[in-house]
């Protein structure tokens, strides 16, 4: 039943989370969402995602802290940093993310990135 890969969208903006849910619906993935790092931690505890789309600046717990916690808890799923920062590559490097995408993005851009990361993971696990 839950054979479809899970993508966890972590962003404090409700509308953006919803948009990503809509956009990724065509990609054959299941989309879960969390409004901050803390919510993400409990979501991850419930079911480990195959990919995290991570905003960095968030209230309660930001992206940096979430990554620290995940590393401390022994490993993390692939992370795609999704940021409006001036230098997204630098943000991604700070948390040793698997990739980054600047906000705003083109729909096709984010779809194809999600597609390729999920496909890589699927081929590795099969």
């Amino acid at each position, binding site marked *: 039943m839950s054979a479809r890969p899970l993508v966890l969208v972590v962003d404090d*903006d409700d509308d953006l989370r919803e948009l990503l849910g809509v*956009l990724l619906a065509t990609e054959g993935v299941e989309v879960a969402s969390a409004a901050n790092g803390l919510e993400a931690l409990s979501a991850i505890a419930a079911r480990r995602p195959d990919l995290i789309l991570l905003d960095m600046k968030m209230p309660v717990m930001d992206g940096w802290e979430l990554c620290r916690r995940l590393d401390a808890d022994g490993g993390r799923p692939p992370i795609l940093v999704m940021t*409006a920062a001036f230098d997204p590559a630098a943000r991604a490097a700070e948390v040793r993310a698997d990739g980054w995408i600047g906000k*705003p993005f083109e729909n*096709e851009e984010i779809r*194809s*990135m999600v597609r390729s990361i999920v496909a890589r993971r699927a081929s590795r696990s099969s």
Partner: protein
Amino acid sequence: MHTGAGGDRERERVLLELAKRDKRDLAQSLRAITEAASVVLAVARASVWRLARPDGALVCEELYLRGERRHERGSTLFQRDYPAYFAALLESRAISADDARTDPRTREFGPGYLEPLGITSMLDVPIWHDGALYGVLCCEHVGPQRRWRSDEETIAGNLSDLVSLSIEAAERHAAEMRWRTVVESIGDAVFVLDANGGITQANAAARALVARGGGSASLREWVKLAEYRDRAGRVLPISDWPTARALRGETVHGEILHLRSATIPDELSFRVTCSPVRDGDRIVGSVGVYTDVSEEMHLEELQRELLAALAHELKTPVAITKGYAQHLESLDVQPAWRPMLRAIDRAAGRMERLIDDLVDVSVLRLGRLALHREPIDLSALVSGVVERFARSAPGRQLRVEAQQPAPVFADRPRVEQALRRLIDNAARYSPDESAIEISVTVGEHDVLCAVRDAGIGIPADRQRHLFELFYRAHAGTPHDVGGLGVGLFLAREIAVRHGGALWFESTEGEGSTFFLRLPRADADADAGASESAS
């Protein structure tokens, strides 16, 4: 005989005392000299007169009346009334007039001056200063006529020289005081250090700074109290302190340093200029000027935070607008809606570019374009940028021809940013169906990246302004796609700061090619590093 053997000794003593006096106050010096002159030359009146130009008058600066033990000043003698005397001042070493009332040089003083005052003999010595006649030292005898001896003339000459020395000392002192006032009133801390790093002079701001830092008189003690960091936060060893560098002959220009000390609660930031002080070939010390820019740095930090927050807050809504417009357009919507959705998408794209430009301008203004260079392969970097671009503009034809490896020593995000700008521009100003060609060629000294489009080109009359900040070549034309006109300025700035260049060739209606040249990193030294970095 006015003096004897005892008088000679007395004379020596008086002259020696005069020579030893502090000469900074000219009025005091003149009082002492005139008193001494009246005593050693045994005259009733001794005075110093200053030549006032341009009216050609002698103004009495100091007159000592020995009999009355009284000083006076202020009388004036005009050249037009005493032409022979004025002429003699310029021509003689001394005017030694035994009979002043008949001497051709002084007799013009007779009825109006000498007779009423009872003066019979005059011994006047011109005072020269700085190559010009300053005035005259007058020794006037009252009573039976005198015959001036040559030793008396010598003494009068010595006294005149003393006046000259006193003037010089007073002028030097006044200049020093003026300069000290200037330096003291400067808000920046000014230090003069000797070759051992001991503070020899410090103005009020500098003294206050030292006091704040815990108070110390030498660099060696200061080292124990304070810690300097550079802009990158690195603690500077004492050999890298501006003073130490200046003592090695280097001039430090406006570098930012951060100071920490146990007695200063907050970190202070300074813009420092420091130069060696030379004595011939030898470096004998250093002068340092420390401008407190802590407030400025704090504001800059706030501005940076504000900017980041603003960009973040603006970009998220744009992302949502753009995302839904693109999504809806891809659905089975009413045909009439499609152009509207495309318009929303385009408008969001314009806003995105404006925000990017705004951020870039602010980054430039904040002087944050500091490079963090590492060995990278430009070809790999170009491929990454192209790949990313291809994802955001599917269907756009991009041809890449890149020689590998293309080693450069560069700041990865900055070079990426420059390339992105060039590719964006090529796409923006050329038809969707035309290809964009990107090439990377490795030369002996440089690596050259070219971005070629078959677009509208740049009108010849606008080409020379293309790299100006806020210049938009297509403003007011149907090709105007918005923005603030900072992209190319920034891209060139990035190239130049890497020691490279950015230029273009363009023909209106045929297209443009932009060239980004970066110095090639030493292939041997960087081969391994560039491999691991790519």
